[in-house]
């Protein structure tokens, strides 16, 4: 799975996710990537793209939950990401990237690693795989 989340200079957020799914999957299997609110979500608060065990991400509506806890619980972006990774996945294995309308970036995963990279306008840039 690949994904990208962006907040532009005007504070608008967007997310996109694309995948071939899982190797050896059954014909007709739908994963989380195309399901808005599960693998992909964007709103006024943030944009989120998920990856990992699709069935667990679908059950937890992972991407939408990041936005929901920001909106209803008042959490910051990284707090919201940490919250859903810890409390929504049950035993599922997944990760996600997110940006907020305030120009923040965040990521979280409970897998061994996640291929990811991020940058912000103030010059921060990071590329990583492991914790």
């Amino acid at each position, binding site marked *: 799975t690949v994904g990208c989340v962006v907040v532009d200079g005007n504070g608008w957020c967007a997310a996109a*996710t694309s995948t*071939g*799914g899982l190797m*050896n999957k059954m014909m007709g299997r*739908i994963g989380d990537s195309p399901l808005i609110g599960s693998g992909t979500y964007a709103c006024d608060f943030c944009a989120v793209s998920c990856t990992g065990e699709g*069935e667990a991400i679908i059950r937890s509506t992972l991407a939408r939950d990041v936005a929901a806890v920001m909106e209803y619980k008042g959490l910051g972006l990284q707090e919201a990401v940490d919250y859903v990774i810890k409390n929504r996945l049950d035993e599922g294995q997944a990760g996600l990237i997110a940006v907020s309308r305030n*120009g923040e970036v965040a990521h979280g995963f409970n897998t061994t690693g996640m*291929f990811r990279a991020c940058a912000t306008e103030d010059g921060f840039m990071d590329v990583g795989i492991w914790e």
Partner: protein
Amino acid sequence: MGGWAIAVHGGAGVDPNLPAERQEEAKRVLSRCLLLGIAALRGGSAAVDVVEKVVRELETDPVFNSGRGSALTRQGTVEMEASIMDGRGRRCGAVSGLSTIKNPVSLARLVMEKSPHSYLAFDGAEDFAREQGVEVMDNSYFITEENVGMLKLAKEANSILFDYRIPVTGVETCSASAGSMVDNALQMNGLPISIYAPE
């Protein structure tokens, strides 16, 4: 307002024994795609344009399992899926079951912008793609030799999962050695994590 920001990913659940050269290759692709997005943002592009552009680039590179180098079904076929969402107005588009579309994310955007629907799948999505004139590719474009090998490994592991006779072939790809797979016992959907493409 805090200025622009961007993040990209190429999948989670990485094999802890992923060879160093594969790690570097993945980082190179991620960095290239990130820089592409940064340049677009510095040029004043809208968020939705940037996410489409970056994901198209990731889809085109076989290092990750979307688009070219896609994961395969049990039958060895490709069924790709993608979605895009613009936070401005909460507009969205999604596609599933694609087998010929070079860049699924761009078809998802067309669903969002040129159709009355949010989600099209399989034959309907392929028909819509032809109507919209998007670029299509022969099936062989998506199916790489490496992924055919990984599917074979996945099938073998599935059938021998319970007696731990993990195949040692494929170690040169992103699969771990037999011993390390047993030692780590990391599984996803009932299969050793090493079986999966870099996901």
